[in-house]
């Protein structure tokens, strides 16, 4: 009864906006199992389930932590660094619209939860094939609050970056740079797989990788298209840009592949889709469609370079989260500072359209976001490492994390399996 009274009193809820945001939320949720599929295809077959389960784990612990405190620390009134506890345990999260919006705050909570989940899952790409599952669960729970919620507050929740006018449409700071630079820190703390640099560690199923990338792209229409929180201009612009940018990244990636190896690769194409989607994430609702196409081309270059050069180092950032998310997110954040156009976004112009100050705040975000994500993740993982070993033993790593951590195999044949018990028996 009270909830209904709240709605009729505010009368600011829009049926159309709410309907779209309900769909967009479900689309973003799909991105996490899609990422699990993408990552699972990139690892060796003996680690398929463990890799996928790290994404499923994010669905579990990140959602719970988000409801308990994460959402509040990101979006409740607080200081410039972090939000307050006003919405902790979902207090005051109900059918009334959030200030300045036309959708229930309960829906806004759910939509933002799906962002937190997929970001936690992204970081797992740095530690697959050797990190134990239990410390990963602990890490995921704490990281979702200590790193993601803080960065989300800076960029979306009224924190210092947003207050100074940094433009970040759908999460270049918390999601993309947050996951990318955290992944680098995680790879340095957990260290390389035992066979890294000694043996070829190849993707075991490129079809999973392509299908995962395709499903991620689909979900990204909800991710970017929903970040206008309405069916208005910025959502339509971001939605369409989410088509244009990755297409351009793909074309440029094909060209780079041709120049480097004379062949266009499938896993390269899947990577290009992600890089393009990431690049447009911060910029979606702020730049024109033609600049979005240019961004797609530009974003391919630093990510491609890192993917080529990183494996020559001792840094086993296994699934290249830094290249695909950190670098492309940073490119997108800076790109806004050059080409944002007031007629398209109603908010601000970039350097090319007369406002150099906007580029300044984009650059500050591109420094502060990565710095915080890297440092906080590094310290957090070191602390968890004091409590419990982060890595499986060498023997376990050789056997594969599926059997060791989960007692299951992705491709069990059942040959030679002797039935011990069933629950019916």
């Amino acid at each position, binding site marked *: 009864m009270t909830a209904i009274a709240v709605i009729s009193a505010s009368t600011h809820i829009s049926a159309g906006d709410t309907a779209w945001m309900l769909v967009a939320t479900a689309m973003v949720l799909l991105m996490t199992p899609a990422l699990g599929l993408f990552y699972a295809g990139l690892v060796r077959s003996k680690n398929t389930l463990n890799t996928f389960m790290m994404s499923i784990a994010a669905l579990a612990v990140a959602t719970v932590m988000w409801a308990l405190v994460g959402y509040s620390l990101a979006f409740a009134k607080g200081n410039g660094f972090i939000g307050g506890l006003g919405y902790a345990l979902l207090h005051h999260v109900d059918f009334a619209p959030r200030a300045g919006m036309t959708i229930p705050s309960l829906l806004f909570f759910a939509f933002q939860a799906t962002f937190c989940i997929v970001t936690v899952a992204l970081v797992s790409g740095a530690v697959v094939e050797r990190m134990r599952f239990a410390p990963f669960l602990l890490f995921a729970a704490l990281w979702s609050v200590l790193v993601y919620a803080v960065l989300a507050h800076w960029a979306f929740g009224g924190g210092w970056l947003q207050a100074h006018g940094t433009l970040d449409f759908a999460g270049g700071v918390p999601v993309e740079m947050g996951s990318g630079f955290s992944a680098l820190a995680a790879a340095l703390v957990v260290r390389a797989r035992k066979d890294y640099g000694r043996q070829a560690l190849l993707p075991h199923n490129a079809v999973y990788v392509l299908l995962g990338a395709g499903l991620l792209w689909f979900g990204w229409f909800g991710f970017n298209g929903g970040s206008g929180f309405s069916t208005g201009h910025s959502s339509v612009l971001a939605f369409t840009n989410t088509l244009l940018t990755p297409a351009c990244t793909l074309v440029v990636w094909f060209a780079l592949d041709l120049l480097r190896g004379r062949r266009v690769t499938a896993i390269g194409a899947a990577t290009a889709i992600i890089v393009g989607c990431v690049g447009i994430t911060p910029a979606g609702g702020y730049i024109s469609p033609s600049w979005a196409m240019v961004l797609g081309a530009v974003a391919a270059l630093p990510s491609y370079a890192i993917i080529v050069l990183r494996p020559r180092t001792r840094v086993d950032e296994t699934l290249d989260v830094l290249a695909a998310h950190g670098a492309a997110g940073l490119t997108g954040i800076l790109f806004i500072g050059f080409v944002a156009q007031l007629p398209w976004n109603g908010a601000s112009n970039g350097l090319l359209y007369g406002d150099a100050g906007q580029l300044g705040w984009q650059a500050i975000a591109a420094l502060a976001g990565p710095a915080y994500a890297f440092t906080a993740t590094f310290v957090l993982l070191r602390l968890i490492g004091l409590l419990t070993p982060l890595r499986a033993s060498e023997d376990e790593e050789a056997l*594969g994390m599926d059997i060791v951590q989960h007692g299951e195999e992705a491709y069990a044949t059942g040959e030679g399996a002797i*039935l011990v018990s069933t629950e019916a028996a």
Partner: protein
Amino acid sequence: MKLVIAIVRPEKVNDVLEALYRAEVRGISMSRIQGHGGELDRVETYRGTTVKMGLSEKVRFELAVSDAFVQPTIDALCAGARTGEVGDGKIFVVPLEQAVRIRTGETAERAVTPLGK
């Protein structure tokens, strides 16, 4: 002329290949098999069903070698495949009656000697 058959752990295959390469053993075939050699059974659970995996994934190498190469081959296989735990595998050496190189029709030792030797 002997046929050397080795059953090894799949995770040691790269080490075995490297050791064989260093021992200059060139003619190799390998296949993925399932086997049981007295190691502890692995228990897996799928929903309500718990099973004991009696067979483990193994890799079987087959190498036809001339008599002089038998011992170096065995040494290389042991060096590459050993972890010291139960389940490292076995090596079987069996006499080989005849070998034919299909391309040239060469037989016996000439057929199992790598080109250029």
